[in-house]
């Protein structure tokens, strides 16, 4: 297709492994089609690097449809780049101008150690989920789905929170590297639904605790996370999480240790 072609200069963070020192290296991206995605542009740069015998730039990516949450790095100081509500795989080159110089670096956060180049380890987010981001429901005996009625407004709001893809852009955008937007999205999703009520308080306490234990910073409600979020997860979730956490902390009861009688 005869789209416009661009030439760009990329300053890319290269780091061989978690313990190695990293630094910026400059590359030229030539004749980039404006219909290509940002990652397809990087693919082409990598093909050239490999042909020259160099190691390609490592970056995380998978579905390339903006859904899986794998991809993400910082482009010119902005997580997932300059377009709002977009993952980097859905950022197309028609949003750039010929001759631009772009700086690419990984998510920077203590809780996200660099694996290589632009790839970081985000497993801390999984550990926050395993601390309580679930509903205890064993397989096989659930009641008929329509016996749990959920007002449409609540279902829609829960859905909007549940839409978080766990990419980590919120953490990268936050000056404190806080995971509050991610954690609050899951707490909100479940607190808004009738199914989530039983474990509501315990969930808030455990997930917030896990978030702190992983070394994420505190939330000061600056709102940078909301701007960087590719899925428009709203700051309202953080307010809701704070409320859930305060209520839970204020009314926490000790667990009974008594066993059954029989």
């Amino acid at each position, binding site marked *: 297709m005869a789209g416009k072609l661009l030439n760009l200069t990329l300053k890319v963070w290269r780091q061989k492994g978690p313990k190695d020192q990293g630094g910026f290296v400059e590359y030229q991206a030539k004749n980039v089609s404006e219909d290509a995605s940002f990652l397809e542009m990087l693919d082409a740069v990598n093909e050239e690097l490999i042909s020259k015998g160099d190691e390609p730039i490592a970056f995380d990516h998978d579905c390339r449809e903006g859904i*899986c949450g794998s991809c993400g790095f910082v482009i010119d100081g902005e997580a997932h780049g300059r377009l709002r509500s977009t993952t980097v795989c859905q950022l197309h080159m028609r949003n750039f101008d010929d001759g631009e110089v772009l700086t690419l670096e990984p998510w920077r956060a203590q809780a996200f150690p660099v694996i290589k180049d632009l790839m970081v380890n985000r497993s801390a987010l999984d550990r926050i*989920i*395993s601390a*309580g981001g679930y509903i205890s429901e064993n*397989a*096989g005996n659930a009641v008929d789905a329509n016996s*749990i*009625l959920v007002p449409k407004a609540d279902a829609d709001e829960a859905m909007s929170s*549940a*839409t978080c893809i766990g990419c980590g852009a919120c953490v990268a955008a936050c000056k404190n590297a806080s995971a509050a937007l991610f954690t609050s999205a899951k707490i909100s999703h479940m607190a808004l639904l009738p199914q989530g009520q039983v474990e509501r308080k315990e969930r808030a306490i455990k997930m917030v605790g896990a978030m702190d234990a992983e070394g994420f910073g505190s939330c000061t409600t600056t709102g940078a996370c909301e701007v960087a979020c590719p899925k428009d997860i709203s700051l309202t979730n953080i307010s809701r999480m704070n409320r859930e956490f305060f209520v839970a902390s204020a009314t926490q009861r000790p667990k009974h240790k008594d066993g059954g009688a029989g």
Partner: protein
Amino acid sequence: MSKKLDSKIPSGPIEKKWESSKFNYKLVNPANKRKHSVIVVGTGLAGASAAASLGELGYKVKAFCIHDSPRRAHSVAAQGGINAAKNYQNDGDSTYRLFYDTVKGGDFRAREANVFRLAEVSANIIDQMVAQGVPFAREYGGTLANRSFGGAQVSRTFYARGQTGQQLLLGAYSEMMRQVDAGTVELRTRREMLDLVMIDGKARGIVVRNLNTGEIESHEADAVIIASGGYSNVFFLSTNAMNCAVTAAWKAHKRGAYFANPCFTQIHPTCIPVHGENQSKLTLMSESLRNDGRVWVPKAQGDKRHPNEIPENERDYYLERVYPSFGNLAPRDVASRQAKYRCDEGRGVNETGKAVYLDFKDAIQRLGVDKISERYGNLFEMYEKITGDNPYKMPMMIYPAPHYTMGGLWVDYNLESTIPGLFVAGEANFSDHGANRLGASALMQGLADGYFVLPSTIGNYIGGTKLEKVSATHDAFKAAEDGVKKEIQKLMSIQGNRTVDSFHKELGHIMWEYCGMARNEQGLKKALELIPKLKEEFWQNVRVPGDANYLNVELEKAGRVADFIELGELMCRDALERKESCGGHYREEYQIDGEAKRDDANFCHVAAWEYNGDGVPETRHTEELQFENVHLATRSYK
């Protein structure tokens, strides 16, 4: 000669097969379950739900995935929905109708008993997912909403905006993470299965590569489940995620698991068309769009006018014209083929001529922009990001693309492969979709296998099999590890002139050209000459830079492409042998007026291929299919 494949379909009427199986299966008492371990490879819908359920039951589960988090499995990409025979709409749905539609939709190449079980547990899946907090779309009164999908005349598809797969996966993932917290599931991320380990003829473990460090690890278990998804990436350009591969299944195949119906690949009708040579993948537009979108091309060949300038009477709404009863909801294989015909006639749109319109003008007039945006807003936004066109203002352009694979490792009714103790779930197995998968049934199958089938059948296997204790220090593990290391060493040492992607692209071109939406004898024979040459060149001329003892993306890709090349050859062989057209397998020689012409007298069977060693032709075995409930008939959607 052909060894008889025992499908282990239980006797008795179809409605009672699953119930009686469950009663007859051996049970393992809770105290003993703790002593048994199960490995789950892949943590998409099938894998995560299997790991969660087996963990709940008390087994020691080890779950492996290639991603940094199980939440990234490609199940996330299923947008449209999940079917269940709930009949909440009172529009005549039933377990039997879902079963009937699925068998017919699969063009009578699925196993009846499996499909009935799938339809039977479909209602439980919805209950299960709602109970664990999946935010399905609701009506104002709070009940669940439904929509319709291709191949069905009832509204049985449950959905969560355009992210049903994502929400279901997050549900299954969070249930698995609950078990991780409880200590019953041990999760190993960024591990790729590179061999299956067999001891005394049974699957007893796997060898994996730690993708972050390059370390080769052995893991033992009493049973192994492969739930590693499909192999559409054999085409290079497909709707699959970049890391989807056949590797886990292929390695198991090389250890003796038969590979069934490899040529049954699904071409999905509504993808965003290819834009250029450097494109890395294709993006699917959900089939649900065909509920309100109307598919058309200009009546005149080479009509290059802007679609909004083409008047109604100069448009050919060909699906509505050819299939008046199903219209735009014709099944995927049928809709894909029709799109190809229209483009072959020279009436395709887009600069490439390889696209048709999917138009929402009438729906917007009827329902208003708000309603359409509520139903499909995120899909419209995604389309606009990729193409730069606004689908509220002009029709989308779509074209068929490789999407789902109905072939996979052969399994019996218990989802056990031809290797004892090796179970296969979800898209990685072959059993339920026949030659064509209807929309919204992949999610259903993944979750049915993981939540409802495997927990019973794994128990039956463990309860009924004498399993000696084995450890990862056993010689069989050492031998497998050595084999894996040798192959990695070989890939690293070639240091040729061509990149891994260049081989993958070339394979993809061959596969799409000769084993894609339409195949013929001549083309398949040509592919069978080209692929071995490509394989030879690959092993002499591929270049893998970097270090094998570190994260090395090119090395990961090289291993996967090596397996795709071998699979590609088998797909062509399978397609060549199947001298009929059915579902997504369309042999041009066998057709009636452009519709697939099956040959039930000679091909009403599953073809399952046995690996005989590198470079040796595989042996084709068959499992005859019996249709006792849905009678063999030519599919018609007219």
